Structures are given as C-alpha cells and as structure tokens.
C-alpha cells in the first residue's frame, strides 16, 4: 500500500467517524421518541406516537414552547438593528481601536454563561423587569450578539469599498444610499445572522434558567425541570420537536438567501 492510499484511508475513516458521531445523538433520540414502552431506551421498544400525543397534550410544555418562541422573536428583533449597525460601523467607519473593539465584542464568549447569567439576573432584578419573558430574549441577544455581527460583517467585507461612493455619484444622498444600496446589499448576512440568533435563543438554557421563574419557564428549562424527576420518552419527543424547529430555520435560511436574490430581481 503506498503512502497516498494510506493517507486516503485514514482521512476517510476520520470523516466517517465524525459523521457517525455527529448524527448518533440525533438518531438515538429520534428512535427513542417513537418507543411504545414507558422508559426511554434505544433501540426503541416497539413503535407508537403516544409520547408525541402526550407532549402536544401537555399544557406546561405548550406554554413553555410559546414562551421560548416569544423570547426568540424578541432576541431576533433586537439583534437585527444592533448587530447590523455594529457590523457596518466596524467594517466601514474604521473606528479608532478596531482590534480592541473586536475583542470587546468577543467578551460574551469568554465570560462563562453562568457568570453573564448572574450578572443579567442582578441587573434585571435591579430594573424590576424579572418575571417577564421579553427580558429573556434581550439576554439571549446580549450574549449571542457576536454571531450576528460576524454574519453581517462577512457580507459587508464582500462589498466594494466604493459602493456608497458609487451611489453618491448616481445622485443618492447618504441616508437614501444606505437604505437603497448598503442595506439590501448586506441582506443575505442579516438573514443568516437573524436565523442563527433565533435558533440560539430558542435553545438557550443556562441564562434562561437564572432569569425565569415558575410562570415564565422557557422550553429548555421546562425540559430540565422534568429530567430532574424522571427521564420519560416524552422528553425525547420534545427534543425531536426541537430538532425540527432548528431544521426548519436552516431550510428557511437556504431558501431565503436564495429567495432574496429572486425577490430583488422582481423589483422596480
């Protein structure tokens, strides 16, 4: 066996292991959710939809789902203007200390989530806004904003540096140029970032755990509360619902960033 062949074998083995390792948890939970038995097992014990029926019948889980959705929408709505403007400012305005600013914007990643969670808990408590759902969304926006900034920055960096100048020589005043040229040109990045922020907020657990009470639990916190008692197959069913939401977001992203191009060509 020559060296090239050996390298191929090693490479493809690693890829295969990675693929299996990445898919395994999802496949196992998917299988376990259809079990007909009363405990969570893999391979599943028979096949039924009964755990899904139980999940959809559960008021606690349904309420938690809607609250998670609400928090995610707040997070997405807050992160679109904040992240877009920050990314444009960083890439186009050449701030005084670009590296320091970049590092500062990375801070949410370096502080452990339990730390930022407690900080936000104290801050929100001080402001008297704890016990509502929207501050959870705001918190998710704060801790995940770097993702939004990165997504938009990638779009901005791909633009011609003279794009706004070109709009100006065409007769567009700066504000007008921003809305008719700059913003549409970075829209793919905004859509990518917004969907990412939505999924991250929908999944966010640790910070929500600290910011919610019995009346405002979000879905991940609700699942966690159940696990503390006993792990039943209905939790596997909830997880599958989760995977579907994330999958939907990714499909939507693929569609919209492609779709966006389609929409633009129909304009004017």
């Amino acid at each position, binding site marked *: 066996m020559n060296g090239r062949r050996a390298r191929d074998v090693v490479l493809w083995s690693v890829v295969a292991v990675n693929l299996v390792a990445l898919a395994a948890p999802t496949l196992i939970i998917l299988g376990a959710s259809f079990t007909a038995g009363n405990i969570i097992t893999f391979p599943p014990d028979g096949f039924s939809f009964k755990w899904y029926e139980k999940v959809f019948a559960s008021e606690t889980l349904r309420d938690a789902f809607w609250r998670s959705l609400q928090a995610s929408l707040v997070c997405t709505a807050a992160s679109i203007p904040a992240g877009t403007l920050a990314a444009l400012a960083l890439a186009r305005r050449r701030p005084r200390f670009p590296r320091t600013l970049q590092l500062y914007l990375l801070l949410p990643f370096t502080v452990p989530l339990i730390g930022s969670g407690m900080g936000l808990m104290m801050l929100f408590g001080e402001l008297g806004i704890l016990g509502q759902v929207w501050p959870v969304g705001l918190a998710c926006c704060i801790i995940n904003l770097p993702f939004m900034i990165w997504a938009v920055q990638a779009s901005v960096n791909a633009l011609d540096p003279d794009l706004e100048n070109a709009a100006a020589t065409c007769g567009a005043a700066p504000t007008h140029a921003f809305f008719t040229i700059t913003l549409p*040109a970075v829209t793919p990045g905004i859509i990518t970032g917004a969907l990412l922020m939505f999924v991250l907020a929908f999944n966010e657990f640790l910070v929500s755990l600290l910011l919610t009470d019995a009346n405002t639990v979000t879905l991940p916190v609700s699942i966690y509360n159940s696990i503390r008692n006993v792990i039943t197959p209905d939790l596997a069913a909830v997880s599958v619902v989760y995977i579907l939401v994330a999958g939907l977001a990714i499909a939507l992203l693929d569609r919209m960033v492609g779709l966006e191009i389609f929409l633009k*060509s129909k304009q004017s």
Partner: protein
Amino acid sequence: MKAADAPLPVDAAAAMVEVRGVGKSFGGVPAVDQVSFTVAKGRFLTILGPSGSGKTTLLRMIAGFIEPGEGELFIHGRPVSAVPPHRRSIGMVFQRLALFPHLTAAQNVAYPLRMRGFAAGEIPGRVEAMLKVVQLGGLGARRIHELSGGQQQRVAIARALVYQPDLVLLDEPLAALDRKLREEMQLEFRRIQQELGVTTINVTHDQREALVMSDEVLVMDRGRVQQLASPDAAYRAPANVFVAGFIGVTNFLEAVALEGGRVRLAGRECGCGAGPAPLPAAGTVLDCALRAEHVRIAPAGTAADEAPLDVQLAGVVRQVAFEGDRTLYEVGVADLGNAVLRVIDRSPEAHLGLRPGAVVRIGWRARDLIPFPR
C-alpha cells in the same frame, strides 16, 4: 512645472472643469501639491502617473469624496468644494466598478435616473438605449454576477453615462482586465465618449492607455504636475527628465553643454536636439534622453544604415528580448563608459542572428538626443 505656473484662463466659463491651486496632505505629507489645470467641454484628459503620484487623490477631490486642503475646484464655473458628491453632476467608473450586487444590469443603469428624478415612464427607454450604446442590448435582466468582466465594465460605463452628467471620471477601471480586453475597452470607451461628447477625466499608470485614449495627458509625480500636453507632445517633447523616463523606453546619458548647441558626451563632441529649454551656458551638466527606438543597431562590419547617423559607436549585445513586432536589445557600449543602452529594433527579421555577445554597431541622429539641464 509648466502647467502649475501657467496663467489662469481669462474665460473660466469655457472650462468644464477647473482645478485651481489644489492641494491635499495626509498626516503632513502632501499627496497633491498646488495642482492647477482646466479641461474644456467634451475633452478627454488622462492623469498619468506612477502609484503614489497623487492622481487618485486628485480624482477623488474632483468627485467630492475628499475635501481639498487648499485651492478650489470649479465645475461649469461653479466652485464645488462645499457641494457634496451626490449634488455634483458627475458620473464615475470605479476601480473595482462598485456595481450594485443586488440589482440587475438594467436596474444598475436605472438607479442614477431614479435618484435624479427622471420621470418613471422614460426610464426604461433611456436604460435600453444606453445598454445598446455599450453593446449590452438584451442583457439588462442579467444579474451582475452573471456577467463577464468585460460586460460588467460596460454596465459600469453605462451607469456613469446614462443621465448625461457634465463630467465623467474613470478611476483606472480597465487596470484589472487582461491586455487584449483592456485595449479593446480603451478604444470602445473612446468611441462612446466621442459619440456622446462627454467631458472625461481618466486616471491611469498605463502610459499606453494615456496615449491611446486622451486629447490631453497630465503627467503627475509626487503630487505635482510634471506636464500637461497632447499625447503626441508629451511623447515627442517631454517637459522634464521624469516625463521623458516615464513615457516610452528611454536611455539617459550624462553630457556637458558646449557652445553652439552642441554637447560633450563621454569625451566626444556631438550635436543634440531641442530640449524644453534653451541649452544652458557651456560647462553645465546635462541629462540627455535618447529613446530606445531612435537608436539603430546593425551587426558590426555591415554596410551603413540608409539613415545618416550622426553618432556611431561599437557595442556588445548583453540581452535580447524578442517581442514579435519588435526586439528589445540591451547593448553595452565601451565608448560611453560601459553604459548599457536599450535599443528597440522595429524590423526584427532583419537582425535575427544577433545573440548576446554579438559585436554590433549602434548609432543615432543628433536631433534625437534631447538635453535636459539638471
């Protein structure tokens, strides 16, 4: 420095663009220094210079992206320093084109018409007509990334010209194209420019482009105007050593001025042509420019060239670069203190046998040696 010192025109209204004593420094270093010139309506001016000569800074001041540190700019006789770019009547083709990526070719061309308040009903007709002028008829619905480099170039040109601005600026838009396409687009743009009669200022470091496209060439170096002349005059009568060296392939030989319009060159007395200034007093050191194509080359011992050569010297070929329609030789000349002369031979087939090491005879006519006082 001819242009910088030239008197301002009496009739400022005749000039589409007037640049008067304009300067700009970045961090205390002058990028553009006391530049003055005018461009008459319908003319094509090229600002030619090496990178760092200040030519792009100058163009961006005319466009309004950079504010002049000193001096004033006039378009149509109106001072424009306080006018923002979107209120100046300027179309511009950018270095990387800066086409709007989310719009189609037709929407790109329509954008300036919409911004400048053209009636919605007449926009499609104007766009289609303009796309025809740049030979993109029928391709208007294509998105920018679906077009080839040359087609994108044409969209950018159409977008700059469509609303008939007073002035069009070109910021080296052809530099990124491959040579064949670039030369095609040079002629193409010149055709469109003459068809529409639009006043144009072009910036380039490509001397060939400057000579091919322009009515006038403004040569810049280190922020200052070196010469403003027709392409023909800039080539045949360079104003100084910089211009002589920047345009064309030029040899420089040190000489000393003598009485009676003659010079001493490496110990021998010979005649010379007319420089930008009369020859200075005898004994003054001169730099003499000698174009590579004005030097004749022939194998040693062959019959004399048909043209009477005033200076003839022996040399040894150092290097040969065959370029198809011409051959560039580097010839070491012992009589010139072992100076290496670059020689362009326009009829390569006549001397195909010349290889490095060959002993040759070179010569030139006195009038082709252009003296510049130091």
